[in-house]
């Protein structure tokens, strides 16, 4: 019984301007790759300015190979109007070689196109120079010494003879000269994010009042990701405030997790820490009496003694002056107009193996969320774990080492 075998066809796209610039920005290239996702689900970023697109089976949808290449050019030029070389072949070597061989029809043409036919092999590569092969300088010189200048000459040699003279690298070069390349395309994983938002009309009073909404948004995003077996590694929360600048908080999770309660609690504690920070930020500048600890980062609270000129700056206008000292007036509760929650760094939640088998490890993972919130509340350096270093050392500080949790 005969089976029809579909040959892999790859489209290589090379942008000379991006390749030429050493420190070319990768941002437009990323956006081009995003645009190519609309053409094929398998797109590989080989390097900055070089992309491979798997076009196997796209014919019935988009037409001939030339039309598919033209469509790819159109999609990428919508992002950035750069010239591009397109090459098509049965494997990644032939596709990229075709892109190198592509010549522009006329000066100023947006794209050049070259394609090797199906089952292209040593016949089509026979007359091409060996300089096109990805060989190092020493290997090239040795090939020259043997009088090998064309791919056909290398392809016709017995494989054992090439292996004896040039080793495994030589055998690989010969396979390329014959048009063989076993390396598969490795589709990139698109760095994606999911987001959900809510607008409040009228605006909510106070940051603390967004807690319920935050919990609902986190649950909604977790449900969406659960169906795809993904879990977020970071959340970004954007609060648009009335009469105040936008408040943006990015929080990395202890591990990828689909736990809306934990995520919401951690974000709220992070929000509270961010909201507390500016309240006490000025208090260290004036010499005064130390009266206690602040509630944010345990910085000493100092009060400004009325009439004292020790401080480098005068207290701000919003300071209440008393006979004892001055306190900054607590800022009014901001009014929240909208909230946007974004999850990114999506990962496979099943990658954590140990907690799946050991209950204590799972509980420790859960505890890490609480510890992260404690870090927000009390500041870094409070929570540590010890590791044994040299148990027989004479000095206690050399026997073990304390590691800050979360650092």
């Amino acid at each position, binding site marked *: 019984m005969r089976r029809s075998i579909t040959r892999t066809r790859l489209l290589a796209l090379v942008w000379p301007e991006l390749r030429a610039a050493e420190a070319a920005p990768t941002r437009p290239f990323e956006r081009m790759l995003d645009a190519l996702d609309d053409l094929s689900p398998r797109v590989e970023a080989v390097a900055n300015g070089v992309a491979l697109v798997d076009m196997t089976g796209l014919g019935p949808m988009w037409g001939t190979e030339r039309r598919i290449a033209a469509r790819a050019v159109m999609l990428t030029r919508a992002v950035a109007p750069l010239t591009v070389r397109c090459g098509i072949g049965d494997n990644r070597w032939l596709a990229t070689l075709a892109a190198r061989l592509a010549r522009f029809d006329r000066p100023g043409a947006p794209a050049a196109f070259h394609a090797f036919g199906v089952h292209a092999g040593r016949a089509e590569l026979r007359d091409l120079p060996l300089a096109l092969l990805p060989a190092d300088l020493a290997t090239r010189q040795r090939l020259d010494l043997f009088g090998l200048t064309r791919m056909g000459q290398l392809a016709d040699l017995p494989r054992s003879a090439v292996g004896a003279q040039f080793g495994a690298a030589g055998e690989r070069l010969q396979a390329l000269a014959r048009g063989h390349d076993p390396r598969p395309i490795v589709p990139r994983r698109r760095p994606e994010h999911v987001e959900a938002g809510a607008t409040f009309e009228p605006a909510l009073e106070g940051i603390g009042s967004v807690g319920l909404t935050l919990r609902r948004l986190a649950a909604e995003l977790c449900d969406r990701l659960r169906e795809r077996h993904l879990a977020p590694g970071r959340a970004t929360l954007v609060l648009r405030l009335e009469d105040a600048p936008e408040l943006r908080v990015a929080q990395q999770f202890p591990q990828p997790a689909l736990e809306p309660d934990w995520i919401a609690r951690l974000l709220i504690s992070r929000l509270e820490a961010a909201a507390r920070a500016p309240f006490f930020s000025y208090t260290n500048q004036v010499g005064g009496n130390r009266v206690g*600890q602040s509630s944010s980062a*345990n910085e000493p609270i100092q009060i400004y003694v009325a009439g004292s000129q020790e401080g480098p700056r005068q207290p701000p206008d919003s300071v209440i002056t008393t006979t004892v000292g001055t306190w900054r007036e607590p800022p009014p509760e901001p009014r929240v107009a909208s909230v946007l929650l974004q999850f990114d760094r999506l990962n496979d939640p099943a990658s954590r193996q140990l907690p799946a088998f050991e*209950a*204590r490890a799972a*509980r*420790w993972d*859960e*505890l890490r969320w*609480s*510890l992260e*919130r*404690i870090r927000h*509340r*009390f500041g870094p*350096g*409070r*929570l*540590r*774990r*010890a*590791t*044994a270093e040299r*148990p*027989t050392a004479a000095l*206690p500080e050399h*026997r*073990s080492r*304390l590691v800050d*949790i979360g650092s």
Partner: protein
Amino acid sequence: MRTDAAAAPSLETALETLRARGLGMRRGSEPAPLELTRPSVPTGHPALDVALGTGGWPRGALTLLDARTGSGATTLALGTLAAAQEAGGLTAWLDLDGTLDPAVAARLGVSLEWLLIARPHDPGEAVELAAWLARSGLIDALVLDLGTHPAPDRRALDRLGSLLARSGSTSALVLAPTGGTVVGAVVGVRVALHRTAWLGVGRDLVGQRVHAVVERHRWWLAGGSAELDLWFGEGRRIDPLLAARAQPIDPVEVAAEPPVLRVVSA
């Protein structure tokens, strides 16, 4: 934990026990109900578990180890953490003075992997940190070592106690050599430790014998006592041969002639 219904003392038995211990009750007063099934964390010493009645330190409660410095409170607390870890628990040590030596803890059987060490700045912050950890409900046993600091605010301790009771999963031991009076008024269990003898092999001291008395117990009858042998260096994992050869030495004799301390079980 005792679940045998036959072991449950009747009211008459309880009153007899109280009278025998000299802890007479006011006429007409009703004893608090005994909680036979109260969850607990093992102390690491079966004799003390029996004396406590609840099978160990009760969960969801504050326990004060009332002991002078050097009377074995730290060793007993570390043994408790080791026992809690053996049962699959997570533990924490709030070290106010920064005197905890993790290497010593490891020698006493504490797995550093499951031990959280917190370094608060003052007693108030220590109590607040303990409350945060208790609220998570994931720590089985935590030790609040106040060291030489004064006792924290009583209201903060009350708040910690109510949080512990609400979570019901964490057993908190308080080591307060200097502030035992204040702390002792709010805890659910108070155990006094007195050294009765050193334990020595020849002229080498290998441990101490401690008399533990349950002076207060909110969920069981107070007055129980136990003799505990606390071994230096190895904790409960002392070599049985060494333990069998150890002889009690009167602490007065030791004080008169300080022995040469040598490491015999490193």
